[in-house]
């Protein structure tokens, strides 16, 4: 359960989120809205990368402002840019890097990393230089590096924006199969067919919050 309790955020004078009240317990939730509407800021609050300047966020009752570490243990995050999420030179090392803080011995980490890679269609890439993967493969690697930690919630901020159609579909396919709660920020509205709930943001406020059909109809009208 993710709760936003009268959440607001300002960068200096500039208010980017205002009085957001949401209780998200559906399996598939999306944030949509124009550029600059505050989607990324809101999404980052779920794992404490950004802290609210007003109000409070709770993830399963934990406040990221106080319990950042425990919250991040439950919440995985996939970013937009495939190139800046990979921190180790090979795909296997990168996934294994996620497991470092769990105090798992190295051989075990390598084994689990290879397993996780295979699960995400990257079998045989463990020793492959990560920088040489395609954009789509890098995004799958980023996903893999998060899922290997078995989070309860996965937040994805426009994970498919920089991918071509085929890789978008492939990534969406992976997301669809996950057991976790997924919070997806996206402009690719076709990914939202099987979603339970779509939250529409405009200038830092929630302007619609409904099932996909209804919410997206509202969003399309808003854009025109």
């Amino acid at each position, binding site marked *: 359960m993710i709760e936003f309790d009268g959440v607001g955020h300002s960068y200096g004078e500039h208010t980017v989120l205002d009085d957001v009240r949401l209780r998200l317990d559906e399996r598939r939730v999306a944030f949509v809205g124009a550029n600059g509407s505050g989607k990324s800021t809101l999404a*980052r609050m779920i*794992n404490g*990368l950004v802290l609210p300047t007003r109000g409070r966020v709770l993830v399963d009752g934990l406040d990221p402002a106080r319990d*950042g*570490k425990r919250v*991040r*243990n439950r919440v*995985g*995050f996939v*970013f937009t*840019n495939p*190139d*800046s*999420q*990979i*921190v*180790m*030179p*090979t795909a*296997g*090392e990168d996934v*294994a*890097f*996620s497991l*470092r*803080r769990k105090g798992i011995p*190295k051989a075990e980490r390598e084994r689990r990393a290879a397993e996780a890679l295979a699960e995400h269609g990257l079998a045989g890439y463990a*020793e*492959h*230089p990560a*920088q040489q993967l395609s954009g789509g493969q890098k995004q799958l690697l980023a996903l893999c*590096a*998060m899922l290997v930690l078995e989070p309860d919630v996965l937040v994805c901020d426009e994970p498919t924006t920089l991918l071509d159609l085929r890789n978008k579909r492939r990534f969406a396919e992976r997301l669809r199969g996950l057991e976790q709660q997924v919070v997806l920020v996206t402009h690719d509205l076709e990914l939202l067919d099987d979603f339970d709930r779509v939250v529409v943001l405009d200038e830092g406020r929630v302007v619609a919050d409904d099932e996909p059909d209804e919410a997206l109809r509202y969003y399309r009208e808003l854009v025109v």
Partner: protein
Amino acid sequence: MSNVIGLYQPGRSPLHRLPAGWKFLALLVFAVLIVVFDRLWQLGVGAAVLCVGFAVARLRPGVVLRTMRTVLVLLAVVFALQWWLLGALSAAVVCLRLLVAIGAANLFTLTTRVDDLVAAIERAASPLRRFGVRPETLGLLVGLTVQAVGALSVIARQTREAQRARDAGRSVAAFTVPFLIRTLRHADELGEALAARGVGDEDGSDAARLSEELRR
């Protein structure tokens, strides 16, 4: 653009399997010797040893040449300059020394996984814990440094491609400004990604400060 230092190439040779810590120590000793040597024949022996190393590692020659190409071009320039200033013999000594030292560093990075190196450094640095040094931070720094070399060269290539696409010519400013902006953005995004992966969540760690720094 080719990197001056090559990235790990998977393999099963004895050099690949040598523990990273010992290999690193060997690299250090070798590098010190190469710096101390100042006779052509001594450096020649060093070069021969290095060649044996490459042969043992069974790396594809294409990979080795690709990583050394930039170095060879640079060395050609240095050689010409030194020859003109100091004569052929000292030019040869200086260039051979550089070539062998960089070649050895390459042989090391081509046959060593960063994860292994990081683990070795963490082990070696663990006695320093007493003095407030956190081995995890050192290890992470090494990993990220090696990674940054790759990331920066990708950014440089992208910037140059964009420059060419806009027909912006070869001016330094037309390259430097977008290059710096992209690099800063990369640092920003990398800092966020590290934080999301729990770097800095170790209790009161230096890594927390590192990821804070990166996010600035």
